[in-house]
């Protein structure tokens, strides 16, 4: 992996720009998709943007019986192969962080794919709570 997605929770102001950026980046046929990132307030005025952490030992990949989830070594993202996915929801149930989810609008299983190497949430985040950086 050459890049790392960095989340700094105490910089997040809960403006939800990332959510909008995500939904519109993943639009299909001019219909915005469901967001893959959720700023959640855990205390008054304290926010955490909860999104896929692209784990080193991912439960979603282990749970997928059909080999539909694989890591993209270039971007570091675990990507879901929509063609292979049979929507059995195993990954949705298995992810301990709740970051594999169902998109009811487009009837598919979704997870953060780091926008193929240029995450829109990080680009739009006004406070740099979300950053996508090259490492080493």
């Amino acid at each position, binding site marked *: 992996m050459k890049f790392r997605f960095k989340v700094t929770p105490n910089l997040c102001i809960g403006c939800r720009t990332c959510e909008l950026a995500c939904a519109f980046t993943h639009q299909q046929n001019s219909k915005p998709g469901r967001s893959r990132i959720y700023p959640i307030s855990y205390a008054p005025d304290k926010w955490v943007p909860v999104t896929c952490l692209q784990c080193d030992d991912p439960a979603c990949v282990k749970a997928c019986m059909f080999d539909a989830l694989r890591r993209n070594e270039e971007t570091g993202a675990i990507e879901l192969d929509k063609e292979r996915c049979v929507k059995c929801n195993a990954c*949705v149930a298995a992810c301990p962080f709740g970051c594999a989810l169902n998109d009811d609008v487009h009837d598919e299983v979704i997870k953060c794919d780091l926008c193929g190497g240029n995450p829109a949430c990080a680009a739009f985040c006004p406070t740099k709570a979300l950053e996508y950086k090259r490492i080493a």
Partner: protein
Amino acid sequence: MAQITINGKVVKAREGEMLLGVIKREGIDIPALCDHPAIEPTGNCRLCMVEISRAEWEGWKKYVTSCLYPVEDGLIVHTHTPELLEIRKNLIDLQLARCPESELIQKMAEDYGIHKTSYEIRPDSDNCIMCYACTRICEVLGCSAISPAMRGHDKKIAPPFDQPPPDCIGCLACAKICPTNVIKWHDEGGTRTIWDKSFEMISCKQCGKKIITKDFAAYIVEKRSLPPEYFDLCDDCKRVETARKMGEIVARVEEVAL
């Protein structure tokens, strides 16, 4: 790398990969009902027929199912010759007689200009096209709960002895992969029923939302050695929990910094 010609266009492809994949990659639209990347191709629906030939065959050609034909260097492939269209039309006509109520087959038939099948319509049709996608995906999963049963006209996909299948875990892979949506299931009040077998769903311990069956979760836990507590909550509640835990970490980091 092999070099093949598809409809007159020279295309590079990996030696040994199936022709259908290359054809789809080139954006050429040919029907294929039983093809799915998660399962091995078997050529059951036969709709992905293409014409192949080679320069040294001196005009000879043959028709093959492209989902099963591996790429070799120098192949000359045609996907839309009049003969092929006639073959496909015939196949769809036969399918229409077999599955008169399937919307997908009806639409394909319309596309090929068939308004009414020229064969005798199968009485009490279940709309199954016998592509075995369901049994193959169940094999990939490692359960093999359903299989083809009987022979000839009575052939059907069924669990053993038409009884609720003991090996089924209620994952719905068979129902979701079925091109003609034949396999019926329903979720109601924490119970999922498929193949006449009832499954208890896992209820989120906080909100009660149901995602998968207990049997499926137990199967994943056993096969992939995941901690069972991963399946206790639904995705929504797990995100809230993640935020709370990350908040705790942030608070601790700030405490240390002070």
